[in-house]
């Protein structure tokens, strides 16, 4: 079920009413309702894959119980690796089987040995990378005794399958989300209103920005040979806004929806395109995944301690694995490695924690230096996005070759945009509107958080305007990009 669909618009109020008016007095029943609603939400896409979630839930629940009774280190390790094996096994099979197989075949043929391909037609279950990592965090935290294992299976199942963030995050830590299922939720007006605000802003980013920018990005990426470098660069910029609007929009809707049900999820995006360097960008982009890798991979590997070689190794590992998490394609690996290259100089120069607060913290506008820093950081991310968006390495290289040609400095012509349903000026204006609202709301958890203290005519005026824009400027319906991960 998509957040930007009529199905969800009907589903959400039904669950909301049942949750607060029918099951509110019984915590177990309320949690059970969340499990049922979440399974309906997921099953709407393909009910067959519910068995994967259920199996994963059962395994980690039992591993948790086992760890609680087991003091023997070896047996505890066996239990932990059972959880890791099952979860990563599913992920490996559904997401990476064909990738490894194809690469083995290519490697063998390189050495003159042809082996017959036997790839499978595997459907990737939506959200598998997200709920797998979420449930893994539980097993690891219980193993490390950072978290008490739960005996409440319903609460645990609700934690694994919680529908607002089931298919595209934020990837929650068990230590943050699971305890919220133990306590009785009370309806908080301010929390719910802020949740609605965040949903509205998320829809704007997804439907108005991402879906419209997608039309441009798709056209230019589909046939880069037909366009000059300047237009291809614009295409990459459009993709940068598409992926930001798409993914951060999804996160906003997820966090806002969770707030309607009395839950607090972690912030997943903190205005990343206002970052002044790549280290800041990675503290602000897909925060739940970055911190997951930091806590469960980077720090166990030694983090930024140790020798220079170790630092370089760890940085590359975390970025390359993060890239590979996104998909079984060399383009994602290169995207990760490129970001490691961007990040490494800052780490080595110990400048990776220079910009911790929001940009222009006590000012309305940024300084020229900050504009330059944000501009160069954005340009670097745009170039990296080319690898993220490309079908394969040849496509990425052809696109970059197109950008870095003499035609980069030509003025785009109207003829390059004729087959688009929306005028490029309109999309540019919408992006400017997004940037202004995000800039003025950058001190808050989400851009519309700034409205809390506004006078009501301004506040409701803005809500209506955003709602009207969602209605009028909704692009052609596109699924969320991160569903494929």
């Amino acid at each position, binding site marked *: 079920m998509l957040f930007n669909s009529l199905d969800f618009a009907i589903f959400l109020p039904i669950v909301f009413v049942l949750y*607060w008016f029918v099951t509110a007095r019984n915590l177990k029943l309320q949690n059970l309702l969340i499990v049922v609603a979440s399974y309906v939400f997921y099953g709407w896409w393909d009910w067959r894959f519910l068995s994967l979630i259920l199996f994963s839930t059962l395994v980690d629940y039992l591993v948790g119980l086992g760890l609680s009774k087991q003091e023997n280190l070896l047996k505890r390790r066996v239990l932990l690796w059972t959880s890791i094996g099952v979860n990563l096994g599913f992920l490996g099979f559904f997401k990476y089987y064909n990738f490894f197989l194809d690469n083995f075949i290519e490697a063998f043929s390189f050495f003159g040995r042809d082996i017959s391909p036997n790839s499978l037609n595997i459907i990737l279950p939506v959200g598998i990378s997200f709920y797998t990592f979420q449930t893994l965090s539980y097993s690891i935290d219980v193993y490390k005794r950072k978290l008490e294992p739960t005996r409440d299976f319903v609460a645990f199942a609700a934690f694994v399958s919680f529908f607002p963030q089931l298919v595209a995050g934020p990837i929650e830590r068990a230590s943050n989300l699971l305890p919220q299922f133990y306590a009785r939720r009370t*309806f908080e*007006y301010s929390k*719910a*209103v802020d949740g609605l605000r965040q949903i509205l802003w998320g829809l704007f980013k997804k439907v108005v920005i991402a879906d419209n920018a997608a039309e441009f990005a798709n056209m230019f990426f589909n046939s880069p040979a037909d366009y000059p470098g300047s237009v291809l660069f614009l295409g990459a910029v459009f993709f940068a806004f598409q992926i930001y609007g798409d993914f951060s929009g999804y996160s906003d809707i997820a966090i806002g929806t969770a707030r309607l049900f009395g839950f607090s999820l972690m912030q997943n995006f903190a205005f990343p395109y206002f970052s002044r360097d790549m280290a800041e960008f990675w503290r602000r982009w897909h925060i739940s995944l970055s911190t997951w890798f930091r806590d469960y991979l980077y720090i166990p590997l030694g983090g930024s301690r140790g020798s220079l070689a170790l630092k370089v190794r760890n940085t590359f590992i975390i970025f390359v694995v993060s890239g590979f998490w996104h998909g079984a394609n060399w383009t994602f690996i290169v995207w990760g490695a490129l970001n490691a290259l961007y990040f490494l100089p800052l780490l080595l120069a110990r400048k990776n924690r220079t910009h911790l607060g929001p940009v222009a913290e006590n000012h309305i506008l940024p300084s020229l230096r900050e504009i330059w820093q944000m501009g160069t950081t954005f340009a670097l991310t745009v170039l990296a996005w080319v690898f993220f968006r490309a079908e394969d390495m040849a496509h990425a290289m052809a696109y970059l070759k197109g950008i870095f040609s003499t035609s980069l400095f030509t003025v785009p012509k109207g003829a390059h945009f004729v087959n688009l*349903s*929306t*005028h490029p000026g*309109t999309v540019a204006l919408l992006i400017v509107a997004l940037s202004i609202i995000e800039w003025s709301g950058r001190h808050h958890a989400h851009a519309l958080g700034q409205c809390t203290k506004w006078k009501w005519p301004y506040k*409701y005026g803005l*809500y*209506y305007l955003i*709602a*009207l*824009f969602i*209605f*009028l*400027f*909704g*692009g*052609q319906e596109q699924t969320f990009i991160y569903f494929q991960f």
Partner: protein
Amino acid sequence: MKKILTKVLLLAIFSIALIYPLDLLFSKVIKQSSLAFGEYEVWNDILNSEINAEIAIYGSSRAMMHFNPAILFDSLYLNAYNFGMDGHNLWSQIFRHEQYLIHNPSPKVIIHSADFFTLASKFNGYNNEQFLPYLLWNKNFSQSAYLPMHYSWWDCNIPLLRYRNKGNIILQSFIDLFNTKALRTAGFVGRKWEWNKDFDKAKANMNSYTIKMDSTAIDLFHAYIEECQHKGITVILVNSPVYVEGQKFIDNRDELRAFYNSVADQHNIKYLDYSLHNICNKREYFYNATHLNSRGANAFSSILAKDIKPLIAN
């Protein structure tokens, strides 16, 4: 909980109260624009009963750009209005004809631009945005059998609904408010463009093709001619100039000419064919292979005026 439900309800009520005036505003602004190839200008003239023409010109974009009413007036001293509509969609043309006769006095003569493509299209929704601002406010638009069901019952009856995802049109219409110059003059669009060379680039890779006529379009065409004759309106079929190089790609052009001749014979009306006229050889009169520029349109309109003068003398 009560507080938030009350607020959501109030917001919903206020939203519902807003949709009607918003629809009115958007429809009004779109109607004033020159978008949709200036079709709104023609529709406004029709629906506001502002047309008092003795000669009506019907057809597709070739009608719209080839027949200059001002030139016809200079030669014939008869008011003319060009109802040409982008896209060769006979159903939309007939719908426009029907609305024209409902709201305005009938013309004496209809010059119908019947070219190689006129009867080729099936019932389709091309250029349907021209109907957008009228659908809620004019039942003839929402209930016509001539218009494809591009818009649902909900679109035609719930204010604002049909404007979903049409923000681009609305925004452009608001911008167009600052443009005081109309696109059309008595329905006519003269393009002051020179030959654009797209055809020269494309023709090396182009294959010739056969135009297949649609049987329902043929039936509709016959019925429409009969209806005009019944109302005492003279119909003249005109195949206006198409650039000679472009014509060569139509394999069955002789067959199409013969068909229109047979239609003319059947209804005892005139069919004037300019597809073999010397004007078709003059590239400077065209901006692409199928459309005359304003220079060509004026030249052709003068020739046409001379040719139809004896036909409409009475």
